[in-house]
């Protein structure tokens, strides 16, 4: 009988290590792999259809941005500030989308997931559990946003004198943006769950999703992109440059990302300060998220 002679167990690893976090992600990876292996013809067809629709949408986005950037390129003296504004708007848009997506995703991955009862009753350290859930949240909430940012950044790269440097800068800017949005979004969900019951939080998130759309529109309006797409409509050059004096969100990570992208596009060395701010904020928000999780998760 298997129970009659219990063997001596190996010492348990209670410490929080990246290996522990990865070990907790194994079922998600294996489930994904097994789902692909056991996929039937209809699943393959559905996957191909989904990929085709995504590709068409990606090409549409790429085409739109490519044409817009070519158009902007015609106004030699205005090209740089216009490109700056479009990049700023794009970065703000991506950051807001990532944040909104994370708040909603974190509710299901970190609080309502069916496997939590199994994991919480097991000897898993809280930081390891939170860390693995954070990675899962990041993957689930950001893959689509990141995927559709590729054609946008590709359009910028194709119209840039230094495409590879721009793509490098985009990667260096996008990675910490994802981390910051995921860490902050997850903290917002944690606070909501600590204060309200789960059902109420779900209802609130529907409301918050609507507010995010309003916030997005507001942030884009602050950038006033339509003024800049037709420079000839601005009679006075001072008025044109005044358009850039609209309240810029210099404390938002998206503006630091924009500084990196502009330098990359101009084939200039990447500015140290925005780069340091982006990555240190990413690290700080992650640590803050772990600290908050320890207190209220």
């Amino acid at each position, binding site marked *: 009988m*298997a*129970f*009659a002679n219990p063997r001596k*167990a190996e010492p348990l690893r209670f410490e929080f290590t990246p290996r522990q976090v990865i070990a907790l992600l194994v079922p998600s990876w*294996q489930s994904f792999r097994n789902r692909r292996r056991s996929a039937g013809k209809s699943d393959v067809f559905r996957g191909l259809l989904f990929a085709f629709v995504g590709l068409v949408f990606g090409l549409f986005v790429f085409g739109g941005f490519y044409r817009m950037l070519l158009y902007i390129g015609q106004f030699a003296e205005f090209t740089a500030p216009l490109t700056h504004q479009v990049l700023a708007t794009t970065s703000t848009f991506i950051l807001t989308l990532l944040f909104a997506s994370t708040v909603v995703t974190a509710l299901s991955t970190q609080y309502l997931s069916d496997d939590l009862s*199994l994991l*919480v009753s097991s*000897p898993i*350290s809280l930081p390891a559990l939170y860390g693995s859930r954070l990675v899962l949240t990041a993957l689930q909430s950001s893959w689509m946003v990141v995927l559709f940012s590729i054609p946008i950044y590709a359009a910028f790269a194709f119209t840039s004198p230094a495409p590879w440097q721009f793509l490098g800068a985009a990667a260096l800017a996008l990675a910490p943006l994802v981390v910051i949005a995921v860490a902050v979004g997850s903290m917002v969900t944690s606070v909501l769950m600590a204060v309200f019951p789960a059902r109420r939080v779900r209802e609130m998130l529907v409301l918050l999703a609507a507010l995010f759309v309003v916030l997005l529109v507001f942030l884009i309006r602050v950038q006033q992109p339509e003024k800049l797409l037709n420079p000839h409509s601005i009679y006075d050059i001072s008025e044109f440059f005044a358009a850039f004096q609209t309240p810029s969100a210099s404390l938002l990570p998206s503006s630091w990302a924009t500084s990196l992208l502009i330098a990359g596009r101009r084939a200039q060395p990447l500015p140290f300060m925005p780069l340091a701010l982006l990555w240190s904020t990413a690290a700080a928000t992650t640590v803050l998220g772990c600290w908050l999780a320890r207190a209220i998760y």
Partner: protein
Amino acid sequence: MIRLEELAKSYGSHEAVKNLSLHVPAGELFGFLGPNGAGKTTTIKMIAGLLQPTSGRVLLGGHDLKREPVQAKAALGFIPDRPFLYEKLSANEFLRFIGGIYGFDGNGLESRIGELLELVELSHVRAELIESFSHGMKQRLVMAAAFVHQPKVLVVDEPMVGLDPKGARLIKKVFREYCDTGHTIFVSTHTLDVAQELCDRIGIIMNGELIACGTMDELENHAKTEGHDLEEIFLKLTSGDGFRESEES
């Protein structure tokens, strides 16, 4: 092995569990009975660390669940009434994952998984996805998973649900043998004949309070009944409430 000290849980003004104190020593199979809504599942969830008690404490294998949660949970095996399984994993992959959580790996874990799958008669489907298993097969896999790390304390909520007679007999045999090797099992069930047949001691909870606890003889004396019939004792102690609620549910 399991020690509950003045354990209480409230939801707003409703007290689901009131100052529950209980000690289940090593080698004992303890039955936990009560009518629907008596506080059984709330108590079990507090023992498993899924619910924070409002007051009181839980000690598992000598470790305080609040102060040393990882050490306490390492001593625990928990089978809820509706257990979770990763449906897209094979039985082998699932048990390997569970073993990994408890710090087992390598050849030792593989041979342990082999033994357990053989015991619960799932060796022939070890590489198949769990989603293709019947309810009974899933129950047996959950049992195997709970035994991977040979916990000092096993807490089981409704162990016989969905098992065929053969599976039920296997589980009863396994539980008895496990306790005979010095481990502790805490079983919550509505199946009174199973509790009477298996358990060394039985506790009855009602309205969040432990109203009786002891061996069959002690419960019989407590209820002032004759005939060694747990159903009669249970109904008398709970004034028929449990029976009525079971009928309603």
